[in-house]
């Protein structure tokens, strides 16, 4: 009997017991009509070949293991960063269950959002009644300060008009006339979650800014973009801006939303950018986006209001942080304080201590375009060599710019940038042109297993490792986290490799 009450085996051990191994083998042989083992091996080997790679890269129609989600996820994440704001997603209800689950699995936190629960009759007659009833219920039950409306693809296909629907709902008395209900159309068949983020931030700013006259002040707006590390990163950025004495507003501050304490109270709402600050953000001197690709339309809109706008690409490491601080100094006249200068020196010091372990190591990186760009720059900064840089939701323009930038560096010159490709493409790339390490998210574990390339999890979503997002990756402190993650993996791999013979299994490295 495989089980033992005193030393209980769960799935990780139980099914390796001989009774279960025999059961699985017999099931396969007798009931599954499996392909012959030799055939399976042949196909396994074939999928590693250049021949397969060419077929795989030539496909035009099917997408396999894409590293992107759909617009409303980004909209729900963006809206979550505003004070006591409830996302209301107009369309089918299953979508909302999915966004909530997805965010909860990454942050290990509650994730609230409601749906207008449209079904077949709404598909025929439109979802106005669902909106009227839904807004009233959400407002009454959950008492939000603001309801941010986005859409699932169902509502988009049938062409529901959010602006008109919200006005009608107000007329019908669902919610008070003056209640804040910004909205964004977020069709899932356009762009990805980063597009949805962009649309929702723009929708919220439009809601608060239209009709106001801008009076330029000296504040700086920061738009973080879709970031699974927002908890750690936004706290770190706030610390940096406070040290610099810069007046700032973070537009969509999810740091306290996705990191509430366990003390006996459930806080459905926590933190977030206040509505007042959001309204006042029109008067900022400038807006800085930390992820250009997440904020294309938003930045256009802000620029049209007369603000200076500057977009970064998820600034990781020393030089990217330098550039961000230089820009803030330029805009505000506030010098970089001694404390940050010291932090910078400490990060450079860490690089100096350990660079020989990362120098010349090759990396494949995938994720959202800004993350991939930021990570590629980090790698060449420490002497590592990016070889494959892939973003399923990256544009051709993004790929061209990054490839040119990498080509100019002796460490980046071999990098190939893959826009619009998915993780099944990456599998072929890694088999034919391997990298020493892979940087991505939890989905990369399948590539790690198939291609035997160690995975470093540094971007959303991370489901199978806990709490990393509570630590920053941005700023000099964040750079240290990123660097240590690379080093830890490299050292673990080195120990595993040398433990077989004991030769080179060194105590001090």
């Amino acid at each position, binding site marked *: 009997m495989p089980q033992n009450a005193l030393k209980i085996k769960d799935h990780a051990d139980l099914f390796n017991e001989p009774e279960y191994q025999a059961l699985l083998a017999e099931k396969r042989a007798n009931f599954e009509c499996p392909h012959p083992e030799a055939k399976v091996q042949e196909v396994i080997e074939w999928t590693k070949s250049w021949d397969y790679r060419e*077929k795989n890269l030539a496909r035009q129609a099917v997408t396999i293991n894409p590293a992107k989600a759909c617009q409303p996820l980004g909209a729900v994440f963006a809206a979550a960063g505003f004070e006591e704001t409830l996302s209301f997603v107009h369309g*089918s209800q299953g979508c909302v269950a999915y966004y909530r689950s997805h965010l909860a699995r990454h942050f290990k936190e509650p994730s609230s959002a409601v749906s207008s629960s449209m079904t077949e009759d709404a598909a025929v007659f439109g979802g106005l009644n669902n909106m009227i009833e839904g807004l009233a219920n959400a407002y009454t039950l959950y008492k939000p300060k603001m309801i941010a409306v986005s859409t699932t693809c169902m509502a988009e296909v049938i062409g529901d008009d959010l602006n008109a629907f919200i006005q009608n709902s107000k007329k019908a008395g669902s919610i008070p006339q003056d209640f804040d209900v910004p909205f964004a159309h977020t069709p899932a068949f356009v762009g990805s979650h980063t597009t949805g983020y962009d649309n929702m931030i723009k929708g919220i700013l439009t809601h608060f800014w239209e009709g106001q006259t801008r009076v330029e002040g000296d504040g700086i707006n920061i738009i973080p973009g879709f970031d699974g590390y927002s908890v750690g990163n936004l706290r770190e950025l706030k610390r940096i801006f406070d040290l610099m004495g810069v007046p700032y507003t973070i537009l969509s501050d999810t740091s306290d939303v996705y990191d509430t304490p366990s003390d006996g*109270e459930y806080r459905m709402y926590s933190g977030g950018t206040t509505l007042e600050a959001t309204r006042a953000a029109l008067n900022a001197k400038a807006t800085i986006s930390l992820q250009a690709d997440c904020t294309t339309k938003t930045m256009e809109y802000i620029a049209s209001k007369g603000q200076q706008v500057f977009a970064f690409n998820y600034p990781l490491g020393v030089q990217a942080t330098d550039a961000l601080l230089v820009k803030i100094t330029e805009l505000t006249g506030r010098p970089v304080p001694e404390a940050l200068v010291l932090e910078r020196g400490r990060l450079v010091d860490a690089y100096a201590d350990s660079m020989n372990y990362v120098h010349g190591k090759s990396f494949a990186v995938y994720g959202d375009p800004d993350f991939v760009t930021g990570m590629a720059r980090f790698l060449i900064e420490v002497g590592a060599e990016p070889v494959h840089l892939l973003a399923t939701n990256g544009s051709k323009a993004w790929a061209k710019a990054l490839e040119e930038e990498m080509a100019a560096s002796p460490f980046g010159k071999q990098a190939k940038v893959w826009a619009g490709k998915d993780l099944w493409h990456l599998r072929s790339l890694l088999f034919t042109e391997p990298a020493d390490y892979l940087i991505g998210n939890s989905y990369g574990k399948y590539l790690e297993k198939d291609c035997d390339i160690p995975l470093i999890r540094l971007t959303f979503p991370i489901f199978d490792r806990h709490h990393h997002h509570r630590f920053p990756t941005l700023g000099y402190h964040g750079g240290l986290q990123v660097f240590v993650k690379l080093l830890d993996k490299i050292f673990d791999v080195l120990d595993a490799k040398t433990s077989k013979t004991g030769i080179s299994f060194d105590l001090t490295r």
Partner: protein
Amino acid sequence: MSLDSTNAPAYQNDGEFHQQLIKEVLAAYPDKSAKRRAKHLSVSGADKPDCGVKSNIKSIPGVMTIRGCSYAGSKGVVWGPIKDMVHISHGPVGCGHYSWSQRRNYNTGTAGIDSFVTMQVTSDFQERDIVFGGDKKLASIIDELDDLFPLNKGITIQSECPIGLIGDDIEAVSRTKSKQIEKPIVPVRCEGFRGVSQSLGHHIANDAIRDWIFDRKGPKAAVETTPYDVTIIGDYNIGGDAWSSRILLEEIGLRVVAQWSGDGSLAELERGPQSKLNLIHCYRSMNYIVRHMEEKHGTPWLEYNFFGPSQIAASLREIASHFDDTIKENAEKVIAKYQPLVDAVLARFKPRLNGKTVMLYVGGLRPRHVMTAYEDLGMQIVGTGYEFAHRDDYQRTASYVKEGTLIYDDVSGYELEKFIERIRPDLVGSGIKEKYPTQKLGVPFRQMHSWDYSGPYHGYDGFAIFARDMDIAVNSPIWSIFKAPWDKAA
């Protein structure tokens, strides 16, 4: 059906208090919604053979229903685990993304080669596909998949919302391409807006098995039959549940010719109708197809429960009663063989869990089926409810629940939170969306969809894990440090 359990503890819940709670939560709604929600909330009693709730009705907009959609019921539940077929999430990228590898349907085979369960294959609809239709793209996708995954045994098309709205003819594409590649191609009309929950997706997925697998012309997987052939139906092998069930059925001398659909294969789907007895675990998601096999092929079916030793023993006896004396004797031997394990598990954990109260809110079969497993550990169920049950589920539940149990159908986030806050059970078993709000309150929680990444929970081997996990949840030292010392003093 609830199988009589011999040692269920006698307890009764505070029905009056639960009635009061229902009043309290309804008071928070606008009137019209309160009236609608009132039908879904009840307190169990002898006079309520359906637990006193209405079910399988549209969710109210804006209340934060916990339910999913038809696509989730088909791709996520019924079809997704069939391992040697490639399942296309047909439409925009999101649905396949969020459901990618989340249900822990364990399977053997090599991912991407002869098993495709842990992959997200999608037509990734763009605006032009919505405008011009996606049928041509679908045909190309099928060609590409068959080319890149030559060992696939077939393909299913899991429709997302837009498919049914733009008038695509996926059935025609399926017929044409199936002839070309000489493999089954199964179009499933499980668009998320159909029906009121996951449930219609199960039904549509079941019908697709009937229409596109059973009724498909051409050679099918045959196997020599024996008088002892059974199937496991409605077990999705979450954390290996179907395997820890299969081992018991094999031990009593039965031959499990098919698993539906956890660790299942096309051959096993095709072989279903040859079974002598269909054993169904999750009645809700697969009763349609067992009823069809009963009507068309005369195959009897039996609902069983492999959660917890009382129901496992009762189920094994009930299953064996359909076979000859050898099987009946074997069932007794197997029950006796595992008794020492059960005794040891109870000796270790029952003293730590006895009298602890539990609230459940899950889907499928679990809001009733796991109750007795908790009761085997001495725990008491104070409230339970289903995401997407029908009346027949609540009828089946009535014999499981004790008097005065709080019943909540399609509970809203608001209601569940209030119920938990006021009842303060020792444990809540529900899903990922409910986990963190509950834990913040200081109330122990286990995910009862994914087994909180543990399992299996089925069978005797699974019961030991179940008991261990509930003990971890309830008796972890971390619950005692929620309050800071200066708060305690206050």
